[in-house]
């Protein structure tokens, strides 16, 4: 019996090993190396990398573009996460109810998920184009004033945020839909017998039961808010005047067009720290409030 236990121990590790090896090579090790790189200057042919302590981080604190990217990313996340999640829930409830044409609606909601962001961003570019773009054509029918959506600092970030919401809400809807359909109909009957209104039923029964899904969706939405920059590359390249600069896009620009890997490492660390903080909150706080197996 004991030998069997040891065999299971060894098997357990053997099964885990390949995955851990890849995770180490492409996640943990690069993360650690990024931390170290952040304390070195960028190697140039005539000046090899040398230890410079926290100089990269000092440069970061003085870099207005970094602060703008941070605040843009914060706004982008604060708006896109709740809105996309909320729309996804509404979509799921509608599609779950017996409205006519719901199969078509479900398909329409989900379609953006399967289209490549890089391709649809080009199409959204047309929607936002001044004068003859679709949005402008619609606005002018209603007599609204013309607006250069992507070309003004005031609206460019909102415009790219809408694209992100549009792209991911349908994906989240699927998870809510699956969860809604697993709620026992007996609960609805019981609530109706108690005389609960539809809102009360949603608030007291459906929403709490959907909590694990909401958590799952929120985590995904947070991750997406920090890793999706495809539409930025196509639509604005961070402009005008950095008003759509997001952290990951800045990392990309510093790393692959300025070739300043040391500074890119420092920027990546900020991104990693933010994501780590989010995971801590998730494990420490949300986990206790959500029933999880």
């Amino acid at each position, binding site marked *: 019996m004991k030998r069997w236990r040891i*065999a*299971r*121990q*060894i*098997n357990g*590790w053997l*099964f*885990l090993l390949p*995955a*851990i*090896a*890849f995770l180490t090579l*492409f*996640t*943990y*090790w690069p993360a650690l*190396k990024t931390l170290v*790189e952040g304390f070195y200057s960028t190697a140039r042919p005539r000046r090899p990398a040398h230890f410079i302590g926290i100089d990269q981080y000092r440069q970061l604190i003085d870099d207005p573009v970094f602060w703008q990217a941070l605040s843009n990313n914060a706004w982008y996340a604060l708006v896109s996460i709740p809105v996309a999640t909320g*729309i996804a829930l509404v979509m799921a409830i*509608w599609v779950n*109810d*017996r409205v006519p*044409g719901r199969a078509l*609606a479900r*398909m*329409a*909601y*989900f*379609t953006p*998920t*399967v*289209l*490549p*962001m*890089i*391709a*649809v961003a080009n199409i959204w570019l*047309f929607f936002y184009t001044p004068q003859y773009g*679709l949005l402008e054509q619609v606005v002018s029918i209603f007599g609204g004033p013309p607006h250069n959506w992507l070309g003004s600092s005031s609206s460019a970030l909102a415009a790219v945020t809408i694209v992100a919401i*549009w792209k991911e809400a349908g994906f989240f809807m699927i*998870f809510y*839909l*699956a969860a809604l*359909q697993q709620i026992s*109909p007996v609960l*609805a009957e019981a*609530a*109706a017998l108690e005389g609960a209104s539809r809102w009360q039923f949603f608030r007291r029964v459906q929403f709490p039961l959907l909590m694990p899904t909401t958590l*799952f969706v929120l*985590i995904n939405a947070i991750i997406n808010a920090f*890793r999706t920059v*495809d539409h930025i590359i*196509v639509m604005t390249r961070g402009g005008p005047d950095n008003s759509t600069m997001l952290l990951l896009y800045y990392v990309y620009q510093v790393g692959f067009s300025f070739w300043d890997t040391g500074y890119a*490492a420092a920027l*990546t660390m900020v*991104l*990693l720290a933010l*994501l780590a903080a989010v*995971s801590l909150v998730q494990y420490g706080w949300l986990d206790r409030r959500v029933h999880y*197996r």
Partner: protein
Amino acid sequence: MSALASRSPYAPKAGGLVAEAAASWLLAIFWILPLLYAVWTAFHPAEFSTRFELAAPLTLDNFRRAWAAAPFARYFLNSVLLVALVFGAQVILCTLAAYAFARHEFFGKGIAFALVLLQLMIMPDVLIVENYRTMGTLGILDSIPAIALPYVASAFGIFLLRQTFKTVPKELDDAARLEGANDLQVLLKVYVPLAKPVYVAYGLVSISYHWNNFLWPLIVTNSVESRPVTVGLQVFSSGDQGVDWAIISAATLMTSAPLLIAFLVFQRQFVQSFMRAGIR
């Protein structure tokens, strides 16, 4: 499932139903609009890409020009190889790891699991600079494996399969072992078949993610032989001479067609897989 909804006392009736239907249609139209636009533009001559007249002549010329303008056949092949490689490797690695977490007791399991969960947040997408360097060291820059490798061990996949494997009744496991099956055989004969819907659902997520992934492939590839469709599409649409939406739309439809058609054909199965997979 429609039967369930109809019995619910909270299903909307009469006026409520009309309002809800109208709202859901309105949202649906808004959501599908970019695709409708792409279809319109792709099938009409370029001068109609900003004008919507019913009399506009139909044409397939944009598709022909798009197909001729870039080696899309090669890009398709690359993308297919890429998603097959990623998903194939993910299935193997994640199944093994999930089995270890779900049904084995071993030293350091708790820490190992926490480390895996960490990757849910600290994903390869943000480690582009270091991973680029790693690929350079390995000497595989500009190749399809270089695009795939950072994603093959997926924390999401491991987590998902672990949850599923945990719901498999212990009795089935014991019975198989009594019949003399070894650890690996139990996994293949008992756990994997029961988790089939999860594999389908996970496959959908993984394939659509990697078919559409852009930033990392953009960084590691620079030749036609390794570029997936997304990068090919971008190289081709970022011209010096301005945007031609007619061709871009045609190319967009071409590049998304495989996923779009697969989704339309299998959408019922997909949703049901998600439900049975219990991703929630």
